[in-house]
């Protein structure tokens, strides 16, 4: 067991796979000598050389498109979009080309590639550098979507994403970069599509993702301590494939569901979870299904406002308590 930061875990996971498979190559802006603007790829250029760690111009369409072309011809590219907001600049490549080509060609083309990106709020960067776009990717058939909340999962899911034969959008959360955690020694792999029950409980199920996971756990602890409410917390870890079984099993047990989403409200991933539960677990429910999300607004830059926008431990705990009381 080594203790790593979430930041270090990114390079560790990538390095593990680059050492294992010479077809894994890295491409992105300022990822080489500079080691990335968030130092997420630090050391990889020295370790693997300029042939495998390629700096690009500021050309997201070209770099994502190039990753696709390389993936369909034998490589396993890992492309970095410096900020997840920049997916918008390359969205045609992602949503119309990468996601659809295998299906359109009836399986002739395989696209084993990873699109890594710094996702989420917390650094006061404002509306164009703080979005959570996992729901953009979830809405596109043909994309797998991963968003780890711990250093161990960063390493294990990165390995799984790089080995996966399909395109994976890998969201690295800015607010978690400095978080430390234990990472198993030796090769570490966490399969895509398995949620983690990070806290078990009986009164309600709280489903969270990425930076919302530690907040949901803190809120659950507070609910237990202050109000005797026993909340089960599920870290989805991957949105596609979705561990529907884990969610349904938990809700069947607790009869109550809350989602905690950093994305703005409308068409967020939690809406999909709610619609799944409202259909398949309807008869075991005994209270409204409640979503706790960022309001449907762009993210403000001022610290005072950004902290108010994204679901906080207070808001999660208060909402759960209030809604459970109302449901009594």
């Amino acid at each position, binding site marked *: 067991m080594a203790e790593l930061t979430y930041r270090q875990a990114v390079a560790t996971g990538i390095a593990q796979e680059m050492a294992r498979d010479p077809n894994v190559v890295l491409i992105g802006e300022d990822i080489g000598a500079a080691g990335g603007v968030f130092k997420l790829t630090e050391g990889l250029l020295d370790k693997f050389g300029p042939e495998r760690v390629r700096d690009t111009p500021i050309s997201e369409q*070209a770099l994502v498109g190039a990753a696709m*072309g390389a993936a369909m011809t034998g490589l396993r590219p890992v492309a970095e979009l410096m900020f997840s907001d920049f997916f918008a600049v390359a969205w045609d490549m992602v949503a*119309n*080309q990468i996601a659809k080509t295998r299906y359109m060609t009836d399986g*002739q083309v395989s696209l084993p590639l990873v699109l890594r990106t710094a996702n989420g709020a917390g650094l006061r960067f404002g509306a164009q550098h703080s979005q959570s776009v996992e729901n953009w990717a979830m809405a596109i058939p043909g994309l797998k979507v991963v968003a780890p909340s711990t250093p161990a999962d960063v390493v294990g899911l990165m390995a799984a994403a790089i080995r996966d034969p*399909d395109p994976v959008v890998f969201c690295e959360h800015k607010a978690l970069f400095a978080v430390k955690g234990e990472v198993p020694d030796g090769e570490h792999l966490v399969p895509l599509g398995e949620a983690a029950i990070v806290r078990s409980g009986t009164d309600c199920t709280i489903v969270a993702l990425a930076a919302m996971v530690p907040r949901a756990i803190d809120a659950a602890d507070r609910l237990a301590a202050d109000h005797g409410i026993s909340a089960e917390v599920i870290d989805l870890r991957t949105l596609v494939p979705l561990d529907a079984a884990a969610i349904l099993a938990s809700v069947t047990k607790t009869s109550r569901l809350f989602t905690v989403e950093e994305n703005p409200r409308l068409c967020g991933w939690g809406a999909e979870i709610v619609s799944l539960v409202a259909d398949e677990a309807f008869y075991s429910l005994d209270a409204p299904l409640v979503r706790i999300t960022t309001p449907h607004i762009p993210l403000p830059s001022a610290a005072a406002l950004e902290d108010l926008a994204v679901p906080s431990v207070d808001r999660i705990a208060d909402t759960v308590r209030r809604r459970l009381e109302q449901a009594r």
Partner: protein
Amino acid sequence: MTTKVPDISREVQLRMYQTMVDCRTFEVRAQELFFEGLVRGTTHLGIGQEAVAAGVAAAMRADDYTFCTYRGHNHTLARGVPMAPVFAELFGRATGLLGGKGGSMHLTSVQHGAMGSYAIVGAHLPIALGAAWSAQYRKSGQVAVCFFGDGTTNIGAFHEALNMAAVWKAPVVFVCENNQYMEYTPIRDVTAVEHPAADRASAYGLESIIVDGNDVEAVHLVARTAVDRARSGGGPSLIEAVTYRHGGHSRADPGKYRPDEEVAAWKARDPVPAYRTHLLAAGITEAVLDSLEAVARDAVAAAEAEARAAPEPAGEVLETQLWANGGSAWRN
């Protein structure tokens, strides 16, 4: 028409002519079948532009890559893809090249190096660059060739791909088929320079190359030089082949936005009969050329019959092949 250049072999000349008549015969029939309602959805024909696909294809190695557009019948057939699955795909049949999932705009045959037809303007230039980067990394000696139109030179992806390809010295050849119109709008009305591709080459440190796109041998020679340069590590090229589509942009478009004299003048320069004349002058007999045309007619007829006989796709395939495991499940 350039006079016959000695270093194009007979064999290559005949192959190029075969390709041109194959493409022409196929597309003429495809259009008839569109009006019959057998070809569904949409179709974009390259009738009048065959010399570009044929001349370039003859300069490529079997394991090289082709990337083309929705107007990609010619480029796909030119790589040796059989006609029957192409017709079947146009008909939306189970035996289609893409099982009926892609349609006319997305013809792909990886085993023939036909790496796809892309229907969103500009997207395939970066993708072709990526295939070239891959070949460069794998030291496979493969070259990627990317076909696109004049209108495509005004979209962002063109600019990004050309710059990155030049910086990386990627083994990719960009071929702009300047047929002088985007859909219905003349390219000159929306472009700041006269030659949409060639006048931009210098912006990427590339040589300005313009070729008569209706002269298959001229195209072939330019392509050979560019492909060889790419293969030998000399980096990318941007070729502008000036040509014309005889018909409309797609489907039932009569192309009435073009002056009659302009259409007539270009039809008079039809690359297929022109090359026939050229080959006759070069000493190839009527009999030989007739036989190639017969081969094309028979191939198209047989392919159509086969495709007509094919069944519609079974419902079960609807949710297959999204993922590499063959399925499309998003949940457990």
